[in-house]
């Protein structure tokens, strides 16, 4: 049918190495999400703090993260900071880049979620003697995280896909990096990347399915 012989066996023989790469990919994605969520909460608090400076910092972060390419952000975390004499490993640069991106998008999701929570909730917390921060932490934030859960799942999928950009700063231990190196050895480009695509697909589906299970367990109200 094609003037090309597919050699799937050659690609499949490399599956163990690629799965190791997939683990690194998952590790970066999870780490960048955990850090991203914490930073996004911090940015959300900044935006609600009423302080002009904190609000400006948070707004700048969110707008830059959302209005420039993720690849640009990773370049900044690698080549950009190198201008200051800071030389980060590809892993660190990639992690910082994706975390920066996650935090910006999540902070915006959180802002949308907060609109759905009536002010009277925070007020009820205050009237029980809680400080503004306590009221946010115990009353508002848990509700915010529930409303933003689906966008958070989407962001996790994005984080997995974004790890593939690490190759541009020299990352070669994640799934994309491993596949690229194997490609340089074997030239089975189509087979290897098709296999990588399948692994990426399965990873994102697993995340989406897992998120649904977690949501069902966590949000029973």
């Amino acid at each position, binding site marked *: 049918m094609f003037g090309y012989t597919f050699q799937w066996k050659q690609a499949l023989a490399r599956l163990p190495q690629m799965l190791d790469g997939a683990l690194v990919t998952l590790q970066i994605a999870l780490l960048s999400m955990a850090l991203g969520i914490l930073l996004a909460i911090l940015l959300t608090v900044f935006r609600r703090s009423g302080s002009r400076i904190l609000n400006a910092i948070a707004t700048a972060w969110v707008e830059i993260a959302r209005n420039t*390419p993720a690849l640009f952000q990773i370049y900044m975390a690698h080549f*950009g900071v190198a201008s200051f004499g800071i030389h980060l490993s590809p892993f660190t640069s990639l992690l910082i880049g994706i975390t920066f991106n996650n935090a910006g998008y999540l902070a915006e999701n959180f802002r949308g979620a907060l609109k759905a929570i009536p002010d009277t909730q925070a007020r009820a917390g205050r009237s029980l003697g809680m400080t503004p921060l306590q009221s946010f932490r115990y009353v508002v934030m848990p509700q915010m995280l529930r409303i933003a859960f689906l966008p958070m799942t989407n962001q996790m*999928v994005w984080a997995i896909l974004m790890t593939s950009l690490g190759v541009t700063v020299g990352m070669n231990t994640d799934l994309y990096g491993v596949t690229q190196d194997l490609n340089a050895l074997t030239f089975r480009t189509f087979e290897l990347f098709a296999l990588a695509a399948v692994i990426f697909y399965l990873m994102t589906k697993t995340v989406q399915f897992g998120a649904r299970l977690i949501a069902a367990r966590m949000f029973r109200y």
Partner: protein
Amino acid sequence: MFDTALTAADLVFLAKGAGMTLLVTAIAVVLGTILGILFGVFRYQVGPWWTAPLTFVLDVFRSIPLLIQLVLANAFMGMVLRWQLSGFTVACGVLTMYTAAYCAEIVRGGIEAVPMTTRRAARSLGLSWGQDMVNIVMPLATRVALPSWIGLALGVMKDSALVYVVQVTELLKSTQILITRLQEPLFLLLICGAFYFLISFPLARLGGYLERRWSHD
């Protein structure tokens, strides 16, 4: 502020890269939106069962990295089919499908947001399916879909930075080439980032504004 070796010729080089970014984005967004509307209406009209294969394919485009989509398409065309397509064609083709995959979801969401009662009212006045679609559903669905669509178009522009992998020299790749030559990464990256930001930020604001305005009535 910066003591730079950047020449006028380099700036032209960057501008060409920016032009390429905008060109690829424009082609992908126009074609992808047309396809996306077709897919979205088809999915809504025919129902989930018969459109499952289409749904699956579109989902694949949203579930694997764009970088891999580009590499795979390039390898498939070149190595498997032995079609000598330019990187530009491959880039536009892949980005178009990528856009269509997201656009179909937005369109479907927009149509579903039009209340069934409104459509029944239209049909009961004697409007045909086509008239109902054009006069009732489209204007209402557009209100829901337009802010998301603006977001999608901007997303495609930002993601077009990845077409370097099929040898298309767009803005970020141009920047990187200059970085290698001039060794002034921060300065060059800031120029490049500012370009994306200055296009994306106002349009994103417009999308947010439309969303707020239309969600109130």
